[in-house]
């Protein structure tokens, strides 16, 4: 079934408004943007013929296994590899010294930032349990693991710095000599001399501490790669499960001291990333180094235990807040001291500053907070490094702001929706310049809140909360924005040494009229092959079936930045739209010559180029393509050959917004909490494919619920990871995730090519706050004041028994 046929199939689930419009207005050209077009990616994934890195056949490649640190902190005193080298099938056993001590260093060009060098293999110190020390190269993974068991590493163990409570303890060894107090970044982002006075005289001042537990993205495909030197291309080719192929290339270039041209990075099908794969991993660069050195293909597949305990984590944060309100519940001032536990090193290239930066900059969200001051710090610990996990700090800042709204409402006897209404940036306020220096363009902040409250009413949740069946029920309603698609100018403010932002697309039409679009983005489940084709199809007036997206290959696409930060559809799709418009101009130019008309009189409609007002004077676009390629001698007016165009996009960034509501049930007998219903009102501007947007929302909400109730990376007092399996690190199953009703508002964005905004992280951003708010509501008769996630049954029991304090109980067993 092709796109045309698929688009005309009745969809039982939800009405297809674009196609319905087509049915009633057959004279209007078909529009693909807005269509719930079935995904181009689906058939191969459903057949099992997806091409993930480990699916690429290469029976002769060597396989890597890593010997990893058994302790959280220590000095390496000896590494003995002789036993391992002599084992069956072992090709080499390599240490950092053997590779020349390669490393990665992420740099933020700010005084307040302390760069840390992350050796690819631990050099003389180990800084987290699971840190890779030795690489074993063997004929297959089974044999590599056998040999890894026989490498002996002697480590003088040192006591670890684990939690924020450990900071500043003089009895604990310094993790990086360059940062004796453990602070890797200290950003006093915003100051306001009047804030103290304002808070001092405010009718209501809340002083609160909020905490968020360490989590990990846990994509279903762990990290994996295959590295191979190709003589003919004079290149190291790295096939890798990544979100950022160009940045991986740069990382390899930096770490191994080779020119970028000598490295090609290819991301085939990628099984999820969520930010864990938008940084450069050490092991992949080690594989590249070994492949170059040995002139032989080398593979590495991260197993799930490695993925959980030794790759990248996120969101271990604490917020110390002072918030002042007038007697109508309006913010007069907000002060935040934010501390992020960012692990042992800065990740490349984003650095450890990304969480503190985003937290301090975006905390106010959709609210007018009056005066604002924020300081954010990133602290080193003997845990794996923090990478930008979906939402980055925004799940936390939304949790903070929404709990503040709930608390202020309770203190002042206000309705929780009303207090939000009073504080939200109003439609008349746009463009709104906040005390955080951000100008917010129009969004539906108030409308989303109102619609959310209305939907909660329609769904009968309040009646459900009245039920007397032994379960306690509560509702949480939260409202927030999500910054998306920020280009170079905005990214530049972070002062990263490598500033991401733009994308460049090429669009080429071949002799048969089919189109290839390239983009520097790198999809891993977001359906780019479908949505980018929809965008380009509308511009070129051809079917999306005829349009193929090529991304994820540094040799095939222009330099770009990859897929993260909810940027791809807007920036990648935007650059494709610009390129497609230029290609459309070329088609009109050629058609004009072939039809003896002016280019301005040519319209592209449903696979044809025709003269406006003279529908008989027309050609198929395929005919144009064939003529351009095979009969170019008949076209004398054109100066350029072929049908190819380039386009770029670099928007300033814009805010989507959403309101979420959660209904939770708490069983006092077990302390169990279940999210039983969930509503999302979201506004991401023009929606290219509503089915895909809904999917992103639902998947995000599931991860958010996971971090609210089920997931935490826990450590023993010695720094041993306690949650290294899927039994202990509890990714939710279908039984823990309710149906999520999604409603769309549409505030088109005039800063993007398509009017769309990004939205990929919103689900994860709002859900922890919604669930936490609902839990506190469920236990409102027990003076609940739960200000941390994840919330466990024992925590709820403590509230019910009146024995809790709002301090987070110790994370260690």
């Amino acid at each position, binding site marked *: 079934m092709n796109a045309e046929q698929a688009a005309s199939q009745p969809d039982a689930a939800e009405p297809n408004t674009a196609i319905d419009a087509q049915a009633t207005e057959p004279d209007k050209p078909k529009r693909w943007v807005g269509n719930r077009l079935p*995904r181009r990616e689906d*058939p191969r994934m459903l057949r*099992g013929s997806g091409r993930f890195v480990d*699916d690429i056949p290469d029976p002769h490649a060597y396989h890597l296994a890593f010997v990893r640190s058994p302790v959280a902190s220590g000095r390496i005193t000896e590494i003995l590899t002789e036993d391992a080298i002599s084992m069956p099938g072992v090709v080499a056993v390599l240490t950092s010294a053997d590779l020349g001590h390669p490393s990665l260093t992420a740099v933020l060009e700010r005084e307040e930032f302390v760069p840390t060098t992350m050796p690819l293999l631990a050099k003389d110190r180990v800084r987290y349990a699971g840190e890779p020390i030795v690489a074993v190269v063997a004929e297959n993974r089974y044999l590599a693991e056998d040999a890894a068991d026989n490498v002996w590493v002697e480590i003088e163990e040192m006591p670890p710095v684990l939690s924020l409570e450990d900071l500043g303890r003089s009895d604990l060894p310094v993790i990086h000599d360059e940062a004796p107090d453990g602070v890797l970044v200290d950003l006093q982002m915003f100051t306001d001399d009047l804030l103290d006075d304002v808070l001092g005289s405010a009718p209501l001042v809340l002083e609160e501490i909020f905490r968020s537990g360490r989590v990990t993205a846990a994509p279903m495909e*762990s990290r994996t790669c295959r590295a191979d030197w190709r003589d003919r291309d004079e290149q190291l080719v790295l096939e890798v499960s990544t979100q950022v192929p160009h940045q991986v290339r740069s990382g390899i270039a930096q770490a191994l001291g080779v020119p970028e041209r000598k490295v090609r990075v290819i991301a085939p099908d990628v099984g999820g990333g969520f930010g864990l794969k938008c940084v450069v991993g050490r092991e992949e660069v080690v594989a590249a180094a070994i492949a170059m050195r040995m002139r032989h293909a080398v593979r590495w597949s991260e197993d799930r235990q490695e993925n959980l305990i030794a790759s990248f984590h996120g969101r271990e944060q604490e917020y110390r807040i002072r918030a002042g309100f007038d007697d109508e519940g309006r913010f007069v001032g907000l002060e935040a001291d934010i501390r992020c536990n960012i692990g042992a090193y800065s990740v490349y290239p984003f650095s450890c500053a990304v969480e503190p930066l985003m937290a301090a900059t975006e905390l106010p969200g959709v609210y007018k907070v009056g005066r604002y001051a924020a300081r954010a710090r990133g602290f080193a610990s003997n845990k794996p490094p923090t990478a930008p996990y979906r939402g980055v700090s925004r799940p936390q800042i939304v949790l903070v702001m929404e709990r503040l709204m709930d608390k202020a409402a309770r203190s002042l006897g206000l309705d929780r929706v009303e207090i939000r209404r009073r504080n939200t940036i109003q439609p008349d306020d746009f463009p709104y310049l906040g005390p955080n220096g951000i100008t917010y363009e129009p969004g539906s902040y108030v409308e989303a809140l109102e619609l959310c409250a209305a939907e909660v009413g329609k769904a009968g949740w309040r009646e459900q909360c009245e039920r007397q069946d032994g379960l306690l029920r509560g509702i949480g309603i939260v409202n927030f924005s999500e910054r998306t698609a920020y280009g170079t100018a905005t990214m530049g403010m972070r002062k990263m040494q490598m500033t991401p932002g733009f994308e460049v697309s090429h669009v080429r039409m071949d002799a048969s009229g089919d189109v290839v679009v390239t983009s520097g983005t790198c999809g891993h489940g977001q359906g780019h092959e479908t949505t980018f084709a929809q965008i380009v199809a509308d511009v070129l007036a051809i079917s999306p079936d005829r349009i193929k997206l090529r991304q994820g290959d540094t040799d095939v696409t222009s330099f770009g930045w990859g897929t993260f930060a909810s940027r791809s559809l807007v920036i990648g799709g935007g650059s494709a739209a610009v390129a497609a418009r230029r290609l459309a101009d070329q088609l009109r130019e050629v058609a004009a010559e072939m039809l003896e008309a002016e280019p301005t009189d040519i319209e592209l409609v449903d696979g044809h180029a025709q003269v406006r007002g003279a529908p008989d004077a027309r050609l198929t676009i395929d005919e144009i393509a064939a003529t351009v390629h095979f009969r170019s001698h008949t076209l004398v007016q054109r100066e350029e050959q072929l049908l190819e165009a380039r386009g770029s996009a670099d928007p300033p960034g814009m805010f989507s917004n959403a309101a979420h509501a959660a209904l939770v049930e708490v069983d006092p007998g077990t302390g169990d909490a279940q999210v039983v219903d969930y509503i999302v009102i979201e506004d991401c501007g023009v929606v290219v494919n509503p089915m895909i947007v809904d*999917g992103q929302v*639902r998947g995000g909400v599931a991860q958010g619920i996971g971090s609210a109730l089920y997931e935490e990376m826990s450590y023993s007092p010695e720094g041993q990871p306690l949650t290294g399996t899927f039994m202990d690190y509890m990714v939710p199953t279908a039984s823990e*995730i309710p149906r999520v009703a999604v409603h769309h508002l549409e505030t088109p964005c005039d800063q993007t090519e398509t009017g769309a905004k990004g939205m990929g992280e919103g689900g994860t951003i709002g859900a922890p706050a919604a669930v936490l708010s609902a839990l506190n509501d469920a236990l409102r008769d027990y003076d609940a004041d739960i200000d941390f996630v994840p919330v466990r049954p024992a925590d709820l029991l403590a509230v019910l028994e009146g024995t809790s304090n709002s301090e987070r109980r110790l994370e260690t067993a």
Partner: protein
Amino acid sequence: MKDQHLVSLTVNGREYELVVESRKTLADVLRSDLGLTGTHLGCEHGICGACTVLLDGEPVRSCLVFGVQADGRKVRTVESLSDGDELNDLQQAFSRHHALQCGFCTPGFLMLGEAYLSTDPEPDREEVREVVSANLCRCTGYQGIVDAVCEVAEMRRSKDREGTP
């Protein structure tokens, strides 16, 4: 010395004879000895279900079965569901209901779904949800997967009632 065994097994209707080391999991035999890479490895400890295949008609986690144990047995993997270009009803329902995003966990869910549907269940959303909770997905939030399996259960039941083959 590797402990190797001659194994005869039928996979997706085709017979194979292989020499296999005893510790090699069925998942690895399928993927690397037979090139059937649709079955994926997500955890190798029996929780995520991405490696689910049918072993003599029953759903199993192939990371927890050794290849040698499949001797004399019939295995079905995701590659057996489609007929050339034609996707089967469950696969089509997955696409219709957006039951996949990155696609990595999808083969496991399809085989789990096929196994469940082969028990000719009365379509019941709560029961389907329970069955689907056997596998992990990090992308979709599961709603599309539950919708797809429910829909196909209903479709197959009404086909049976109508007596169509």
